[in-house]
């Protein structure tokens, strides 16, 4: 049988209609669902364009499942916003959601791995199922992860390596580059760097001449890029570990009067995230490429996995990887359209 919301969504049909499986199957699932309401909590580490795209994709998929099988959803989002410590807030978010008997918690967090496992364990014992998304679980020992499932991608091979390889290929294996990285100690940064370095070691002609911290923010990325360009005006490429920082670097290149990559020469700027604003920039020649880590599929798979696990009691994979895309000027329209397809969900929860 084709499980509901299975591979169709994963293949990229998130925006498609809702006809899945046969009528009998649908009816049978409906019976299992029995009009049940799932109380869901969604807690990303920050509020950002990326997670907004995810949320919209999730809504789109939730609405589809509701149409198909009558499952109802109650959605609550919580993300650290204050100046007070982010990690503590997420821990206490999970704890309070557990107290409130949520069925499902989707979480992506910057908190320490081991710390969170204890929190997850307590939650699962109390009957709240935990799903991590977009978490660099590749860095963690799988057997120690206390979640039902982890939906995401391998930051090393599916993000860092892709970006590095693209830069190397574009520069034909020779050139100087600088990196603008996320906050030191961040697991994403660590993982992506492993992949990026892998690509670099495969291309000895490429030299990383400078690194700076851009804190995942555009204005900090701009500042960091400006400083790096002062010392290294002769670089060939900039790797921004996320898109906002890459866009900041793009401004720095413009401000320094340097030329951006036009297909044959100029400075190559590569980011990673897959934001609509990043795609805009690619269209306008302000960003050479980005690694779209696929907010859409991430969210759809997340909803499907939870539905399967909680409602249908299926065995879901502990690690569930989605596809990521390399977006360049040539492919930007397709992926932009893919994201735009979910940005106006039928129903918001």
């Amino acid at each position, binding site marked *: 049988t084709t499980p509901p919301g299975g591979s169709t969504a994963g293949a990229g049909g998130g925006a498609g209609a809702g006809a899945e499986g046969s009528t009998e199957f649908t009816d049978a699932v409906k019976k299992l669902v029995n009009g049940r309401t799932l109380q869901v909590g969604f807690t990303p580490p920050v509020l950002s364009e990326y997670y907004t795209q995810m949320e919209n994709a999730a809504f789109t998929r939730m609405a589809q499942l509701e149409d198909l099988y009558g499952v109802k959803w109650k959605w609550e*989002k*919580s993300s650290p*916003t204050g100046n007070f410590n982010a990690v503590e807030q997420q821990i206490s978010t999970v704890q*309070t959601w*557990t107290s*409130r008997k949520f069925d499902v918690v989707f979480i992506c967090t910057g908190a320490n791995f*081991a710390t969170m496992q204890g929190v997850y364990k307590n939650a699962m014992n109390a009957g709240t199922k935990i799903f991590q998304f977009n978490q660099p679980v590749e860095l963690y020992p799988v057997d120690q992860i206390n979640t039902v499932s982890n939906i995401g991608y391998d930051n090393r091979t599916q993000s860092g390596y892709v970006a590095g390889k693209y830069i190397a290929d574009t520069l034909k294996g020779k050139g100087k580059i600088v990196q603008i990285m996320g906050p030191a*100690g961040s697991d994403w940064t660590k993982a992506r760097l492993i992949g990026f370095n892998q690509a670099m070691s495969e291309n000895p002609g490429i030299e990383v001449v400078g690194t700076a911290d851009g804190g995942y923010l555009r204005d900090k990325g701009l500042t960091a890029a400006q400083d790096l360009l002062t010392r290294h005006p002769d670089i060939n490429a900039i790797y921004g570990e996320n898109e906002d920082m890459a866009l900041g670097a793009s401004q720095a290149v413009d401000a320094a009067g340097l030329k951006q990559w036009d297909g044959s020469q100029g400075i190559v700027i590569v980011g990673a995230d897959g934001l609509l604003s990043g795609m805009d920039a690619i269209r306008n020649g302000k960003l050479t490429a980005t690694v779209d880590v696929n907010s859409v599929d991430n969210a759809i798979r997340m909803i499907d996995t939870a539905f399967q696990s909680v409602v249908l009691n299926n065995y879901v994979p502990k690690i569930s990887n989605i596809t990521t895309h390399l977006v360049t000027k040539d492919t930007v329209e397709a992926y932009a359209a893919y994201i735009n397809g979910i940005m106006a969900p039928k129903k918001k929860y």
Partner: protein
Amino acid sequence: MSIFQRSSRVFAIDGVAVSIVFLIMCVYFAIASPYFLSPDNIYNTFVESVSAVLLAAGLTFVLISGGIDLSIGSNIGLSAAATLFAIMNGAPTLLAVLAGIATGLIFGLVNGAFVAGLGVSDFIVTLATLSIGAGVLQVFTARTQLTGTADSSFLALAGGKIAGIPTGVLITAVILLILEVALIKTPFGRTIYAVGINPNAAYLAAVSVRRTKFSVFIISGIIAGIGGVLLASHLNSVQPGLGGGYELTAIAGCVVGGVALAGGRGSIWRAALGAFFLSILSRGLQLTGVDPLWFSIVTGAAIVAAVAFDRGAQKWLQSTLRPVSPVAAATQNAQ
């Protein structure tokens, strides 16, 4: 004296107004969310607020003396790292605890040496040590995997239970008690207030201002170190940014509790209450399902309301006390 007047005198006991705001808030949350009073939530609330409360209590000493210590944020993180590092490398629990406290002590010594010894701005000095501490913690955690220990005696420091009460909470309560006694009941505590009220006068009145200033930084450092030990035991892991921003939470807690940043006023239990207030507030908001986007707005408003109420109550109280003629009072006094 009317009953009304007598009851108004109750406010005179320092901090009663804040306590009332605190109680009102708790009652509201208890009504608004059935989970607020659940054993689980109570347990979690206490356990999770231990570090905030401890930091606020240690900081209170510095604030009362008229200073400020921003470094407690990275102090608690680094102390936690030192503790966990020691325990993971096979040190006995006692030694690991000492390692954490020693780390806190080092912060206190450096801050104290610069501020009291050299007389430079405490804001700048502790900001500098905050920054250095945060950097060292990142370097340290990047080089060593502080993934946790299985040493049960160490984990029991914060996670165990005595008579159903979490040990971490018990330890904190004992420390608070000691600090309060030290502040209110000892000559040392008295001189801290004196220095905060008027350092010039205190100096000329034979108080060693420098020694007092030095010791408050030591105390604040050590308490943050103990907080780090408990945090390490509670989390059983240390991440690079641990403790970042705790200093602001602690200061906010103290201020809500009525500790004056200008020095000379405050007490341990009020500071602890203020810190506890803030952590209960954020938990309560989550439990009642308030959109987290509203959190910082509500928190801001609650801080204003609590402090404004406290002030209002004090003023009202002062205006209701019955005047006595100085003559009458003087004769009364002579007897």
